[in-house]
């Protein structure tokens, strides 16, 4: 790992949703990670693990009512969580941008693509008129949209899903942000298009030198893209490591389960898949113990006594009392 100052430093981020009926929900709890300039970081987890909420909290896009956000999100030296709203608006789109999960609904259906792409250029680079449209056309061609000047006049529903996601990526990268957050950018797309979009993101991030936070449940994407991976479960990071270390030697039983559950082409025909037993609804509250304990094959009695701490090991952080590898001693 390099020693450059981190671009984004998330410290002890917590997000709680207050509900009128029922207890408050800790969607994200004590999440810390850093992103260095140009680095690609993966946030991996299943639905409800808090990965999207984490990204929305970083962007300051969570609704203000009923939501409490704690901790710090340092970008350069600013804490994005306490930044005045106007300054945050200046940062969004210019320094940090986001690509969303659903390209069908993330574009305004009644506004032509061109207007939506030029909007961000007008906002941050003060381009106007022909200059703005020319820049927009160039952006579209850069993300691989053919015949961009014609596309600029079209409406979102006239574009395919892949094209729309490309247009959204063009909007996000229009002002060459230093950090791009991609929240499951390929989930809503066909498999063949998924690969193209990932390849495009990879290319653009390399060209512009932007750092990328890739939020996904797809370990294949992580393997092909990310330098560092954080695995989240039920609102907390359970394991963080470099990509190689994580895939070569997963230590947390959840990470191990995720890797084992991916179908393998080299497995013998008819070999059963290995799902993680149970479902993410079978979670403990972290205060009472490890949230993954009900589904964990390595469960110890101690796991449900209290929350396991996040230990820092060489090249890895791990939240588990009984991790997978035998080479490490099991803490009491």
């Amino acid at each position: 790992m390099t020693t450059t100052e981190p671009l984004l430093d998330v410290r002890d981020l917590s997000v709680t949703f207050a509900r009128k009926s029922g207890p408050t929900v800790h969607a994200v709890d004590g999440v810390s990670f850093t992103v260095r300039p140009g680095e690609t970081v993966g946030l991996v987890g299943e639905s409800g693990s808090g990965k999207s909420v984490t990204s929305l909290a970083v962007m300051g896009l969570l609704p203000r009512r009923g939501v409490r956000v704690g901790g710090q999100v340092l970008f350069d030296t600013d804490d994005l969580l306490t930044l005045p709203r106007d300054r945050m608006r200046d940062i969004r789109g210019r320094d940090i941008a986001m690509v969303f999960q659903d390209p069908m609904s993330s574009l305004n259906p009644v506004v032509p693509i061109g207007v939506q792409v030029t909007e961000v250029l007008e906002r941050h680079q003060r381009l106007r008129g022909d200059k703005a449209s020319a820049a927009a056309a160039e952006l579209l061609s850069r993300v691989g949209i053919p015949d961009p000047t014609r596309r600029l006049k079209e409406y979102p529903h006239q574009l395919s899903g892949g094209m729309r996601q490309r247009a959204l990526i063009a909007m996000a990268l229009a002002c060459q942000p230093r950090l791009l957050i991609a929240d499951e950018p390929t989930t809503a797309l066909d498999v063949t298009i998924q690969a193209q979009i990932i390849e495009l993101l990879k290319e653009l991030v390399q060209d512009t030198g932007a750092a990328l936070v890739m939020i996904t449940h797809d370990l294949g994407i992580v393997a092909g893209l990310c330098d560092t991976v954080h695995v989240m479960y039920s609102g907390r990071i359970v394991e963080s490591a470099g990509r190689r270390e994580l895939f070569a030697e997963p230590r947390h039983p959840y990470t191990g389960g995720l890797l084992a559950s991916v179908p393998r082409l080299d497995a013998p025909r008819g070999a059963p898949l290995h799902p993680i037993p149970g479902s993410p609804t079978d979670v403990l509250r972290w205060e009472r113990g490890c949230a993954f304990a009900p589904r964990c094959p390595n469960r110890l009695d101690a796991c449900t006594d209290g929350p396991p701490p996040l230990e820092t090991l060489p090249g890895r952080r791990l939240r588990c009392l009984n991790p997978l590898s035998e080479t490490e001693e099991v803490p009491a």
Partner: protein
Amino acid sequence: MSLSEIEATTESEQLEQPAGNLRKEAWKRLRRDPVALVGFGLIAFFVLVAILAPLIAPYAPDAQPGRGMITPTNIPGPSADHWFGLDASGRDEFSRVVYGARQSLLVGVVATLIGMAGGLSLGVLAGAFGGKVDAVIMRIVDVMLSIPGLLMAIAIAALLGASLWSVMIAIAIINIPVFARLLRGQMLAQRGSDYVVAAVSIGVRRRPIVLGHILPNSISPVIVQATLTLATAIIEAAGLSFLGLGSADPRVPEWGRMLADTQRYLASAPHLAFFPGIAIVIAALGFTMLGERLREAIDPKYRR
């Protein structure tokens, strides 16, 4: 349009690729809808009559060509010379009904536009700011809606004095809360949508988000409501004139007051009630038919 023709068009519609934007599709559906076409035809007829009144009407609205034919017991009905008959002052009823279209159209359009402008302003404020602004505006709207519309219009028109303007303003005011509530609801529904969050995520400021993104997505039902409001405005205008709250000038023909003037002669000259009444029905029916079908064409929930 015959049944087989209708079936044929719906089939070809299904085969077609989805082209054009949502409004174009709605427009396409509307053009194939016989009810909407009839509504549109009635409106066109009504508007044309209003515009071309001097060419259509054989007499000026305040001329009394049949003065000598009127006796206290006999008001002549329809004849070859006077298609709709004569009124109690010997004026040509057909000419008066034709000229009356102008008043109804004027009141309907102006009242609807003023009401829409007022309602949209309040709705945009409430929908854009939410919170306390929304709460205050919506409580005012609730109070306005809790008073029966025509009753309030009567009160306002009476307060302003009998004139064309007071009728327009009274009708506009009772329609403000309808538009305000409609737009506010539409905008609130759009506020949390993905494209709004996406626009926020690239740093777009609040004003362009509200005016450039949320408003265009919320306006379709307002257009529908405006069409329907035109229909009720015409009826309400006639109602207020009937009650004597309209223009003070008796020479200006107005359908509502023509009905009111007719009451004493209802037994001897029923045609004086029939023709202005039919005119009101046709004008209101046209806007209602078009409005209803416009709603169905725009709202995906109604799509069959």
